[in-house]
């Protein structure tokens, strides 16, 4: 806690990494400020040092190779929603980013990196990225390290902190035949989600070849449901299968969150409803395109 904080704006990743290694626990990394500034304005946090990574060019930009889309963590939500490489190759992510609350100002300032490192269970980006099996690249004193977002989520309890910098988000492009859906249940337009479900489905003819669901806002961490859904593979989707997926996903919620948006019993049930509705959205795309054809 400091009344007279210091401010540093490193020019490159090496400087930033060295600086962070030299600092004690009172430092914060700041970029878009949408996560940290409300805490600071409210007096909840009084950091000793602000390390502003907003000036590091290496953390910017989106580049798409054939087998991988690389997203700089400083990419703001508005760009995630609109940049061609993402809209075309990762439409699920672009769509989920549109569901982020707070309005235009937040979308223009808030970054995908900030959204990920906060590890906040109510946020929209993580379910989409986990459904897409995204990976991340981190830089610390020990050097650069690549791991799945799922692993990172398992490792950290209170966000990424200042021990390392998120340097890249890496996602395999979705194939044109991948069906996807995202359903965000929120009590009103200004509320955080109470159940956010992202679904990615591959079909083999009529039959479900693979399905992967990621559910946010229901527990402390985003829950990925895939193996549990194996029993629905190889057959076609039906409303019975939908209800079964709903139940499986609801059952996957161990200790549901309970807050003013809704209690745990409801939250657990809604996780299932959101998953089923996201699945229906995904399969609805198929119906729409086949009806067009």
């Amino acid at each position, binding site marked *: *806690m400091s*009344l007279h904080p210091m401010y540093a704006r490193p020019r490159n990743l090496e400087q930033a990494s060295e600086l962070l290694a030299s600092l004690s626990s009172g430092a914060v990394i700041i970029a878009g400020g949408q996560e940290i500034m409300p805490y600071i304005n*409210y*007096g909840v946090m*009084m950091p000793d040092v602000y390390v502003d990574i907003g000036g590091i060019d290496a953390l910017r930009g989106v580049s798409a190779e054939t087998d991988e889309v690389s997203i700089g963590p400083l990419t703001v939500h508005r760009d995630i929603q609109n940049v061609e490489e993402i809209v075309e190759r990762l439409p699920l992510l672009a769509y989920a980013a549109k569901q982020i609350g707070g309005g235009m100002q937040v979308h223009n300032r808030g970054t995908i990196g900030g959204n990920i490192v906060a590890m906040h269970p109510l946020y929209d980006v993580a379910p989409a990225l986990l459904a897409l099996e995204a990976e991340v690249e981190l830089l610390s004193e020990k050097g650069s390290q690549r791991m799945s977002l799922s692993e990172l989520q398992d490792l950290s309890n209170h966000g990424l902190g200042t021990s390392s910098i998120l340097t890249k988000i890496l996602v395999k492009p979705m194939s044109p035949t991948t069906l996807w859906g995202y359903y965000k*249940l929120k*009590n*009103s*337009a*200004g*509320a*955080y989600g*109470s159940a956010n479900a992202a679904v990615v489905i591959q079909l083999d003819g009529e039959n479900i070849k693979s399905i992967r669901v990621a559910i946010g806002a229901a527990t402390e961490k985003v829950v990925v449901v895939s193996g549990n859904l194996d029993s629905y593979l190889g057959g076609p989707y039906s409303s019975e299968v939908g209800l079964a997926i709903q139940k499986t996903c609801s059952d996957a919620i161990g200790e549901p969150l309970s*807050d*003013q*948006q*809704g*209690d745990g*019993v*409801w*939250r657990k*049930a*809604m996780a299932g*409803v959101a998953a089923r509705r996201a699945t229906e959205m995904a399969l609805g795309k198929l119906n729409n395109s086949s009806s067009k054809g």
Partner: protein
Amino acid sequence: MTKGKKPSESYVGKSVRAKEARAPLIGKAKYTNDYSFEGQLYAYILRSPHAAAKINSVDLSGAKKISGVHLALCGRDVFEHTNGITDHLNPAIFGGKSTRLPIMAVDEAWCYGQPVAIVIAEDERTARYAASRIQVDYTPKEPVVDAEKAIAKGARSVVPEWDDNVLIYVPFMNGDTQAAFDQADKIVTTDVKIHRFSSQPMETRCYNAVWEHDTESITLYGTCQNPHPLRLVLAETLRMNENKIRIIASTIGGAFGLKMHGHPEEPLICLMTKLIRRPVKWVENREECLLIGAREQQHKVEMAFDSDGNMTGLRDHFLANIGAPSACPGWGMAFLTGLTMPGPYKVENIDVHMNAVTTNKPSWNAARGYGKESTAIALELAMDNAARQFGISPIDLRLKNFITKEQFPYPSPTGLVYDSGDYGGVLLKALETIGYEDWKDKQKAALAEGRHIGIGMAFELTPEGGTIPGTMVAGYDSSSVRVGPDGTVRVLTGITSPGTHNGTAIAQIVADELGIDMDRIEVLQGDTNSSPYGFGNYSGRSTIVGGGSAALAAKDVRDKINAVAAALLEVEIDTLSLSEGVFSSSDNGDATVTFAEVCYASYTRAYDVAMCIDPPLEATRTFKPPGISHLPDENGRINPYPSYSNAVYVVVCEVDTETGKIDLLSLAAAHDCGKVINPILVEGQVCGAFAMGLGGALTEDVQYDANGVQLTKSFKDYVMLRMADMPLVGMAHHDSPNPDNYLGLKGAGEAGVGGSAAALVNAVNNALEPLEVVIHEMPLTPSRVWSAIQNANNSEGVK
């Protein structure tokens, strides 16, 4: 008589854009926090983390050591310098209890968030940081949080010198209710739970107290609705002369009753400048703003009906959890809930008991509706419940039981005298506006697809312009109209604007009375050094008494101007006409003189043509609405209201039965506020009230845990509706002019929170009727609605 502007040229009745809206729109409005002065210091208030605790000691030394800190005081220090805060509305006047209301907790904290210590520093951060270094030693006590438990035998008294926790009990009785229930064909009981939801202005409270070295006085720049009455409270609390205090209420970004005074921070910040002799500012944060409660009531409404569906008796014994003692007038909301029973219904046998219960929750302040919204919620939920049980339409049941328009003026069973209205007409107009029959068809079609659409309606009677004898809640107000030598006008008025743009309505009225262009008029409000003594803004009164008094003053000035114009043109006054700023006469051919020339002559020719008047061109008048009666009737009852606005709100929604989520599909309101001065202003108020009522019914809820600790601390949890949630409101006006007031005015600003909240609940219950689900507990969060549906499904399974 001289002719004014032709009726077609008049401003009254037109949708004139608000003059005051420009500055906020372009970011140039000066709110209280926009004032800063040389040597400005900032306050931070340390608050109790316990709902009930003994304060053993307060160690300020840690705070005092921080560089930049000028002063740190605890409750006992402040106690030595001040008297208790004067009650805005002393419950003892009505037979209730009172107690000394210290500015900060002294030896004992009686609610979460009560001020315990204050730090004054060079900037806000330093003050906050220093406050975190204060050591307070508390011994927590078992808090009294629940109203029912608070009045149970053996409950600890929140105020030690009281023998129980009932601040005030008032029975409202008329006729023979027991006989009505004994002879009833049907009795319908409805338990209604109204939660704690408040009003959250975008601009939170702010006080900047400035020591005036030259006059040894205080100027308080403050977010306050009632500058003159607050000045008296400050004088008494700070042991100063009233004439040594000036209050400037600048542009206000929403008030809704929350900025009516009695708050401890008002005298506290003034005391700081008195002690330090430098300007001291305090800005309330959202968490603090959410401490201010309202509306938490539980009702048991019993209605007795004869076999034709006529209500023959009404019983409602209700509790209001008003929180800890406070000088704010919040507790009076519970009183008004009882006083305005049975609303629009002509039942004469009533047995209503109000218990305002003191607890260790933070206290209430006034909130839009001032208890009348709770009357509407309780009655209208019960009416729909009765209609359901009778199997008849909620429209028919209401029409059968409404007071009819021939019955006005109508003496209510609690002693009120309703001035005018056409309640059935308002209901039918609202239903027509929303397209009721169409929606019934859509509802049927949707249900066939398994979708649950509901249509709900509710009536709200909103007495406006209230006054209570022996208090500074006055029924009258005053305005001065000053016309300068160039013919421009300054209106100074004792009422204030909470952001409703009533200044524009007053300018419209004055422009018509003077027969001039509105652009020549400036309306000034909120400065006790320039405004006439006035009572500010509450109870939907501002246009009634501010506009009424300004009209009277403008007429007086116009008489002077006419006299001088006639003298200049050498004609009789009754031959004058004024058009587009030029006087002419039917008796004097082409001769003309401009309005401005007449004004100049009025100031400069006092010894020849203007001999006929007393300069300057100024008048101050008071409007005392004649409908008010403070002389008790044979039962000791008074009529404190001059006008009885009323409205019907209709809500169409769809309930997602799988999630419990409610989507709003269509909204409409029909409103009777007497003559409409400016439709844009009235409709803005109605839409705002609609949003507040729906927000209250759906999501807005200030929650506390079992220990009385506040859980709802920001807009993350206290979620108000956004534009995207709300369809446009279909608006209809159905004016029954008030026979007693200037232009037939009734209030327009306060109504709507209860009616719209009740309409939403009724719509949801209508949607869920096929599932046999009825909910009378607010708010209707998705989880609550979903649980009710699950429970119904489960009990169905058991069958």
